[in-house]
Every structure is written in C-alpha cells, then in structure tokens.
C-alpha cells in the first residue's frame, strides 16, 4: 500500500466531491461513497437520493433522534432535509433509469478500461445481489467508480473484467487514492495523479492499459 487506507478513502471522497455540481441529484452507494457527503463544497447545493424512496437525504440520525419511518438504502436511520420528499420504489427507479439522477458514485470489485463494472457477485463465494446497482449504473447520467486502487495490493482496474458485470460500458470516471481516470473512446486516460505517487507506480498497480494524459495534473483534493 503506497497510501494508508483511511487516508486513501478520505482522498477519494474529497476528490469525488469536486465532481459534483450545483443543483445535481446524486446517489451515493453504501460504504466508501457515503463519505463523499462530508466534503461537498459549501457554495453548491447537491441533493442526495436514496433508492429506497427519498430525495433530500441528510446525515445519519443521532442516537435517540431516529425516525423509524426514515431509513437509507443500507437500512440505517437518517434525517431528511427541507427540500426532501418520499416516494415508492417505482418512482425512485424512474428517477434513476430515466436519467434524472445526475451522478451515481459506487464502489467496485472490478472495473475495466471499456467502462465495464463488476460489483455485485463473486460466483461461488459472495452473492449479495445487485440491489439497485444495475439500474443506477445503467441509468445515471454520470457513473463514478470510487474505490481504493487495489485490493491488498492486487489490481482492481483491468483490461477486461473477469467477474459478472453490473453493467456494460457505463462507467465514466474512476477515482482512487492514486489518481483520476476517465473512460474514453480511446481507452482509459489518467487525468490526475496523487502528488505522492509516480506514473510508474500507478501503472504497476493497474492491469488495464493506462493512457497518460498530455495534460496530466496533480490530483485536486
């Protein structure tokens, strides 16, 4: 590990937050993506969707202040903000599939240079199910994969995913603690790099072919 895991996750969350724009509707996956909410720039207004039936989701409810009728997609009690509202699952996935969700941020087991994503099953081992992930990746206008660059040193960004896909060629951006990679027609382009790592280090930790941007920048966090 070049960068400590906890620090890495914070770097990822901060960088993802900078991708969000004023007025957007955003769905954050469970786990690491949830951290993004902590770093939204103060001058922009972003609304979070929770696919179990809410927009305007706020923070986790404080102990003792839980409303048992308001949960997030992980089943935890959450607050709802003034602009928020509730709806059924049809409407929730209408927002998702219909392209009303501007950005979805998800973790990955594997992602590849064609924008394929695998994050819902390891056959024979782990079968949680796809939940809303397939719809989110298929329907959201922009799909950001946010994850640690490797799994205990093993690459997670491939030329071609090995695991069953969540969706085909839908990922737009991959943000890890080491850099920012964009899926383009030409392949996977490294746009930004963490100031503490080298291009060679990233390449050695990435199975995919990385195209280095002519305009490579230091990761903006």
């Amino acid at each position, binding site marked *: 590990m070049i960068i400590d895991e906890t620090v890495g996750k914070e770097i990822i969350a901060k960088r993802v937050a900078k991708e969000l724009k004023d007025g957007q509707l955003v769905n954050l996956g469970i786990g690491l993506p949830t951290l993004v909410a902590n770093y939204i720039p103060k001058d922009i207004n972003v609304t979070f969707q929770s696919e179990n039936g809410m927009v305007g989701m706020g923070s986790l409810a404080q102990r003792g202040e839980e409303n048992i009728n308001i949960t997030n997609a992980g089943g935890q009690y959450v607050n709802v903000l003034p602009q928020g509202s509730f709806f059924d699952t049809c409407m929730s996935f209408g927002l998702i599939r219909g392209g009303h969700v501007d950005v979805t941020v998800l973790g990955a087991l594997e992602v590849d240079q064609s924008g394929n994503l695998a994050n819902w099953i390891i056959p024979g081992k782990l079968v949680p199910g796809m939940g809303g992930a397939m*719809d989110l990746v298929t329907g959201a206008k922009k799909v950001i994969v946010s994850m640690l660059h490797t799994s205990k040193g093993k690459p997670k960004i491939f030329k071609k995913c090995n695991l069953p896909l969540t969706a085909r060629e839908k990922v737009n951006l991959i943000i890890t603690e080491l850099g920012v990679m964009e899926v383009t027609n030409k392949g996977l382009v490294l746009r930004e790099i963490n100031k503490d790592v080298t291009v060679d280090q990233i390449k050695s930790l990435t199975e995919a072919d990385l195209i280095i941007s002519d305009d490579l920048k230091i990761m903006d966090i």
Partner: protein
Amino acid sequence: MNKVVNIDEIKHLFKDGMTIMVGGFLGCGTPEKLIDVLIDLNIKDITLIANDTSFVDKGVGRLIVNNQIKKAIVSHIGTNPQTGKLMNEGKLKVELCPQGTLIERIRAGGYGLGGILTPTGIGTVVEEGKQKIVIDEKEYLLELPLRADIALIKGNTIDEFGNVSYKGTTRNFNPIIAMAADKVIAEAEKIVKTGEIDKELIGTPGVVVDYVIKGGE
C-alpha cells in the same frame, strides 16, 4: 363497508405453496404482525416476492430463517446470511432481479401490462434467456410481469374502507404490490373511520385492499 378484521379471520387465506408479496426495504415498511401470522401458521414452500430478504431477525428475513420459503424473487440477499447459506445448500431457490426491474415487473402485473422493456441488465447475466428488443437503436430486455396470490402491505394510518396512508421511506414496494395480488391484506399502525384520512395523503386506495388488521405502532 368495514374491512377491519382480527388475525383469526385471515388465517384461512394462507396455504402452503402460495406466492406472497411482502412490502418493505430491509424491513422498513414490512408488516411484522402479518409475518408473525405466517410463522404461527408455519406456512411452507412459499414463493416470496420482495425487495430483499432483510435481516435474520426482521421482516421477511424471519421466514427465511424459519425455512418457510421455497423460492425468493428479490434484488438483494446480502444482509441475511441465512439466505445465502440455504441457497448454497440447495434448500432455497433465489432469483435475483435488479430492483428497478423487479418493481416494474410487479407493477406490470398489477397494471395489466404484458411486460416491460428496460435497458437494465443488458450485457450482464441478467439478460440470459430473455428476449431483447431494439428500439431507436438501443437494446432493451423484455422482462415479464409478476403477480402473487396474496400481498402483505404495511401502512401508517388506514381507514376501515382500506385506504392507506404511508410515512417516509416505508412506501417502497407497498403501493405497487397492493395492485398485483389476488388478495391484499394491509397492516395498520393506526386504524381510523372511513373518510378520516386526508384524501390527498392516501397512497393506496381502499378499493384494492381486502382486509385490514391492526399491527404494532
């Protein structure tokens, strides 16, 4: 017309081998008292249609643990380890369906539509064995309707006619499954006289509800 009944009056509705839809998302918005009834009656070989299999001690998760489910059509089983265990042992069949597809299939079943065309699942194992239809140069999967013998829904306040109002994120599958079953039983936190719920708050019209029971608050 008063649809409010005691538990004893609905027991005859349940039979082994039935297909039952249950509302709730990880247990939020699940009619727990109706789950109790299914457990008390020990109804077996149920085909369960729900969003997920909840947790071992909550909602439909309790039916999994009690070995009452033969097949589960759900989008997610990750929060209930018993589901995966029984599945691996060959004791439970699990059909995983993307959440947005699952709810639209149920809606199609209740709304008289022949199926739905969704882009979700294209290029994945979900498309296996399914018809693909190209519209405007884009591929869609034809996914078929789902219906059930009984739908068990959970409302907040319900009136005697069966009009249901929901709160917060307890809606999820409830208003949709209420349209897609031969019999609909609604569990209320609070029961009021017909007409006492603000009509703008009614999420499921009583005309589709057959029985109302009082649950916990």
